[in-house]
């Protein structure tokens, strides 16, 4: 028997107390949004502080048959944390404890509400860091990073979130708590850990994350290269990697973005350049010297105007600040923005940059580009004023054309932001019906009732065919 939504609220209020169950209009409005331009409809918001409380909330929602939307810091850019049709939002923002650092095994359990940057700051004195570094790392949470399989500039050499999550503790949709993965590598069975990371909260709620910690490199060098044409800069990206150097990070910024950022950060960026490349190489002193030589040589072969090498940690931090505050700097151009994070094969960078230029010019919108050039992960940011319906419409049209252009060049929909609501209906551009049905079946294997973050990731109408399998029928004497 299921209870009504009102009865669920009563039970949750009894569990968490009135301060940690938000039911007022202001809260419901706030929790109807995330960092995207998607708006939703929030029912009630629970703020649990422990795994047990999350499990209790999930059991109650299960018994009431109510949908659940997990939420981290709400910085997501695709509407993944936006509840679409009421239901229960479970915010993990209050679960901010970090466990002890396991130095011998270079790992640490943290709760999902811990902010990304706080991890690296807490362990720097041990010579360690947490490698994935989304630009929003001062605000985004580890739980959200796990949900979207977040990336960041340094993922070029170090890999994305799933490569740095050894295990997860997850509350399943019925309230059961499981631990998937762990410190010991490659446990027998399917790699469910790998599926949970990037599942955008559709398979359960992750309540603890076992992070792999990476030694800080012994040496690092950060360079700013500036070019008079975007195609020269793109060619250098390709040539550096073709020369056998995988930089720790390889970022590009176009002129529109450089101007917005420079006004904001005052990092001495050349605002007359068509494109800047921020290149960081790290490793042993010998590796860094060799890589630096290659980068400088390749850049000169392709018409670089200046090569600025950060002289100290302060200058390096300033250059990175310029890169990582870029999204914020867009506010100097327009109050809001709309962006995609398609990925294209690196060899198509010049072509796709030209296409983006043509599309945004045709639609009459301002586009600023700052992105992970080394792995072909674009971030065309269309600045807009959402109070202007015509401009908003043109921005949407431009975004749509950009996505289609990227896919046509052999690219994919998202490199690190996820699918959420916003790109959900583009999924058929890259997957056919059989592909999508298989994904729906994987999802359903975790969430048979379909109550976890419904209507996200997969297009409406994608179904897993009936699978007649009773859980209890297990052969005698085998593994289970």
């Amino acid at each position, binding site marked *: 028997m299921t209870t009504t939504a009102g009865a669920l609220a009563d039970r949750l209020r009894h569990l968490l107390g009135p301060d940690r169950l938000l039911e007022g209009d202001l809260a419901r409005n706030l929790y109807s949004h995330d960092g995207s331009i998607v708006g939703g409809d929030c029912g009630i918001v629970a703020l649990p502080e422990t795994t047990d409380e999350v499990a209790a909330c999930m059991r109650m929602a299960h018994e009431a048959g109510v949908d659940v939307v997990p939420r981290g810091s709400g910085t997501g850019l695709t509407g993944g944390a936006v509840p679409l049709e009421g239901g229960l939002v479970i915010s993990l923002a209050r679960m901010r404890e970090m466990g002890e650092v396991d130095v*011998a*095994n270079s790992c640490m359990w943290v709760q999902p509400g811990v902010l990304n940057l706080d991890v690296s700051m807490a362990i720097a004195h041990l010579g360690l860091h947490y490698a994935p570094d989304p630009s929003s790392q001062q605000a985004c949470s580890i739980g959200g990073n796990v949900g979207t399989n977040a990336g960041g500039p340094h993922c070029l050499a170090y890999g*994305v979130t*799933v*490569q740095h999550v050894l295990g997860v503790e997850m509350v399943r949709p019925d309230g059961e708590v*499981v631990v*998937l993965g762990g*410190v*010991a590598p*490659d*446990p*027998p*069975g*399917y*790699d*469910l850990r*790998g*599926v949970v*990371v*990037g599942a955008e909260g559709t398979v359960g709620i992750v309540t603890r994350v076992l992070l792999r910690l990476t*030694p800080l*490199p012994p040496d690092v060098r950060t360079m700013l290269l500036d070019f008079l044409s975007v195609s020269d800069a793109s060619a250098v990206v390709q040539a550096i990697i073709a020369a*056998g*150097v995988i930089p720790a990070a390889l970022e590009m910024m176009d002129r529109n973005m450089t101007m917005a950022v420079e006004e904001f950060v005052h990092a001495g960026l050349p605002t007359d350049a068509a494109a800047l490349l921020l290149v960081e190489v790290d*490793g*042993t002193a*010998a*590796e860094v010297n060799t890589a630096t030589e290659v980068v400088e040589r390749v850049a000169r072969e392709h018409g670089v105007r200046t090569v600025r090498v950060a002289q100290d940690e302060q200058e390096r931090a300033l250059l990175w600040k310029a890169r990582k505050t870029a999204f914020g700097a867009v506010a100097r151009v327009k109050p809001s923005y709309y962006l995609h994070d398609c*990925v*294209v*094969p690196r*060899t198509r960078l010049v072509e796709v940059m030209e296409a983006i230029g043509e599309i945004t010019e045709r639609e009459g919108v301002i586009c600023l580009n700052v992105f*992970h050039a080394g792995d*072909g*992960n674009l971030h065309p940011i269309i600045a807009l004023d959402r109070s202007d319906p015509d401009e908003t419409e043109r921005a949407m049209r431009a975004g749509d054309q950009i996505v289609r252009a990227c896919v046509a060049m052999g*690219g994919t*929909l*998202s*490199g*690190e932001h996820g*699918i959420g609501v916003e790109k959900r209906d583009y999924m058929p551009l*890259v*997957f*056919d019906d*059989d*592909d*999508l049905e*298989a994904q729906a*079946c994987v999802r*359903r*294997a*975790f969430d048979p009732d379909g109550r976890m973050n419904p209507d996200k990731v997969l297009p409406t109408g994608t179904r897993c*065919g009936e*699978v*007649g*399998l009773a859980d209890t*029928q297990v052969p005698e004497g*085998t*593994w*289970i």
Partner: protein
Amino acid sequence: MDLRPSGRDELAAMLRAATADGRVLDIRGGGLHSRRGWPFTPDDVLHTAGLGRVVDYEPDDMTITVEGGVTVGEVLRLAGERGQGWPQAPSEPGATVGGVLAAAAGGRRRLRFGPIRDSLLEVVVATGDGRIVKGGGRTVKSVTGYDLPRLLTGSLGTLGVIVQATLRLWPLPMAEQWFSARGEPADMIDMAQGLLAQLHRPTAVIVGPGSLHACITGVPDDVVPPAGMVDATEPSGPGPGVVEIGVPPAALPALARRLSDDGRVFEAWMGTGICRVAVSAPEDVRAMRDLAMLHDGHAQVIDGDDALRADPFGPVPAGADIMRRIRASFDPAGILCPGRFAAAEPVPA
């Protein structure tokens, strides 16, 4: 009977027929990872050698797309011609790409380059009922949809036949060399720990009974013999009859000492938590599992005859019911290696 599909369409037709007829299939690539999981008796053996095309190699993107029956050696040869490599690959050139992915059988460079699952960008799989399903994406970075590539890696042929894989390649290093030393087991373990502490991102540090191997990758200035070590080649593994232990990396020194004391033949991949041990009897498997569990780890038989594989995996994993449902949706009739992976096994109602 031996089934030898020459392409994905024929493969799909064979799978549909097997599903319709309820004929149990084993899947065979290079045959190097077939002695895993619970023994089962197939009606037919499906050989993937006919899935042998190199579909696309884009050196400038550092990605290669090959069919599942292409050998590891062929990928390395093609990549090598363009100054690239697949550093997560195992060292057996005759193994097939589909086979090593299905077995998650990565190579000894894992310490620096990570597990083999991290090199699989896109996978195309033929399900038990003959659907062709694609997951992931060919770009070097993608979070588009559920991670079927990781789900397929290590699935031991129970979710589908790997038809095609897109792999991420890396530039060949400017320099790389294996080094070795021999001596008292305790000294070798101490030296190994010293290397892990001193070297920045060593490629491999491998302890055997009274031996130490290390691989260093990078620029020529860095690739020099560590104190007390001489030039060598990659070591070979124990076997036939192998248990793979996985423990927290910090437990490996104690584990290696114990294995040395017991006179076992083994290779401990220091820093990764992986240790492969030669076994010849079911009680060896039990002993290795007890030892692994003592260190909060696990042990599975990765090569063994039927007797050795009486209990190949140990305790039931968390989420076994999820695994079973995934398996049932990919292979509704349960014809793909049924019994091999019993936790994931669908049971007819």
